[in-house]
């Protein structure tokens, strides 16, 4: 499927592509902990969302622990929350050089790949997009998300050593997801979104571009997601990555993003996942969507979406209100 063409069609119709997967746990009667470790449940979740909502694509779980776990990082699972990476696997150049790039049987990589394969067997009328972490966000999880900030100054060679291995692994993983039938990848790089523009260029963008160049084709799109607070300061660098579309969080003003973006670049976002999908009401959601459309709906390159992945316990009344407000 040509996801890029479908996204342009969605933009024209104000059809939405929210990052919507975890709330399927409510419909399936399972926990997040079960879903993140079971390919069949992941496929069922994507089918559930594809069948029961007007989303223009099915998206797999935005679980940013999968790739770091494959490298050997410790994972803590929660009943109803996304897993979290704990500890610091790599702390200096020596450990970075010794870090082995895992093969695709490590951790839950095969589980997630199989989930995509099963989803693609069952979903025929919408694209299936696989979730994947970005290189700096992965490296941060291997070096600790706070410590990496210091290491970028103190030991940039160590950071670049891990980044190269992270990028190589993500390219291999991306190819496996493509082979499993995914129509594209939603690449989440939120940790780069708190860097300065210069640091983002040095420690993220060049590696993201490598991955996009290696994977993206006419029938396989990369959607770049970054919900960080500093994103508004680095839009030029982001738009130069070459992704088929860019997805933004509610830390940025979507209208400002669209005013900056060239009109041939697709931009998506950004209804507040916590503030509206979880804590809002159908009425507040409707108002938020109407406001977003009023400010951004005239841009031909805008696709409505959530600002980030929607939490598992989001209200389905609010989810349905989101789509209803767009119809």
């Amino acid at each position: 499927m040509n996801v890029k063409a479908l996204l342009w069609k969605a933009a024209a119709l104000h059809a939405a592509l929210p990052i919507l997967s975890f709330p399927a746990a409510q419909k399936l009667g399972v926990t997040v902990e079960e879903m993140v470790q079971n390919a069949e449940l992941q496929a069922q979740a994507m089918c559930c969302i594809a069948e029961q909502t007007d989303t223009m694509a099915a998206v797999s779980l935005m679980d940013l622990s999968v790739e770091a776990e494959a490298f050997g990082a410790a994972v803590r699972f929660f009943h109803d929350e996304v897993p979290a990476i704990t500890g610091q696997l790599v702390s200096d150049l020596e450990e970075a050089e010794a870090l082995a790039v895992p093969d695709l049987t490590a951790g839950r990589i095969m589980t997630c790949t199989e989930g995509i394969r099963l989803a693609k067997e069952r979903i025929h009328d919408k694209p299936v997009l696989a979730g994947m972490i970005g290189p700096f966000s992965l490296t941060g999880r291997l070096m600790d998300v706070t410590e990496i900030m210091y290491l970028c100054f103190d030991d940039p060679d160590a950071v670049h050593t891990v980044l190269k291995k992270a990028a190589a692994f993500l390219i291999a993983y991306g190819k496996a997801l493509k082979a499993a039938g995914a129509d594209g990848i939603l690449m989440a790089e939120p940790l780069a979104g708190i860097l300065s523009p210069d640091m983002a260029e040095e420690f993220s963008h060049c590696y993201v571009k490598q991955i996009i160049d290696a994977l993206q084709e006419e029938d396989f799109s990369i959607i770049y997601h970054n919900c960080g607070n500093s994103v508004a300061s680095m839009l030029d660098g982001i738009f130069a990555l070459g992704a088929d579309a860019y997805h933004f969080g509610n830390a940025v003003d979507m209208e400002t993003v669209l005013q900056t973006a060239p009109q041939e670049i697709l931009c998506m976002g950004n209804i507040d996942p916590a503030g509206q999908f979880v804590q809002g009401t159908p009425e507040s959601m409707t108002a938020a969507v109407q406001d977003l459309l009023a400010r951004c709906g005239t841009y031909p390159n805008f696709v409505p979406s959530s600002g980030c992945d929607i939490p598992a316990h989001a209200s389905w009344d609010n989810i349905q209100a989101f789509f209803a407000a767009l119809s």
Partner: protein
Amino acid sequence: MIFEDISLNLQAGKAKVVKELVKQAIDEGHSAQDILERGLLDGMNIIGEKFKNNEVFVPEVLVAARAMNQGSALLKPLLASEGSTAVGKVALGTIKGDLHDIGKNLVRMMMESKGLEVIDLGSDVPAEVFVETAIKEDCQIIAVSALLTTTMNNMADVVKAAEAAGIRDKVKIMLGGAPISESFAEKIGADCCTHDAATAAETAVSFCQ
């Protein structure tokens, strides 16, 4: 001149240079309080303003705060002998069930840069630990962070625990984290929420005055 050098090098995150300059300033006979306020805090205040204005970003703030901490560590024994005391004390942590800590770490550093003494309880902290720490350490403030919509509801337990322990009128309870709003803070009976580390530090100082 040396104060300006300390401030500029702190802003650049040059911790080793800041330590050397602080030692030099001490050797030159400057008071610890002057070195702290005119050198270190001056630099951190400038960084804090630049951070609020999106002129510098999280990594720059972290390395500047590290320089601040390493410089002020040399001053601590001298400040005590000069009779200087912390502006106030804060029990800080990420709420139970939540492991996210980068925002909390940033808040700690900004609060310390404002002269607050911060007891960092880490992440996944139960409500009663916040309250027990506040009592034991005589804190004026309990500051709680959450990044997950599932864990933010646990923040209400901190307010309830403070009430049950009879200290609610003695401590301010501050909230922070991406999903936290003013209406949520009001709903659970907290005193406020702040949306960035610099404002959190300024608010904490104002609570202690």
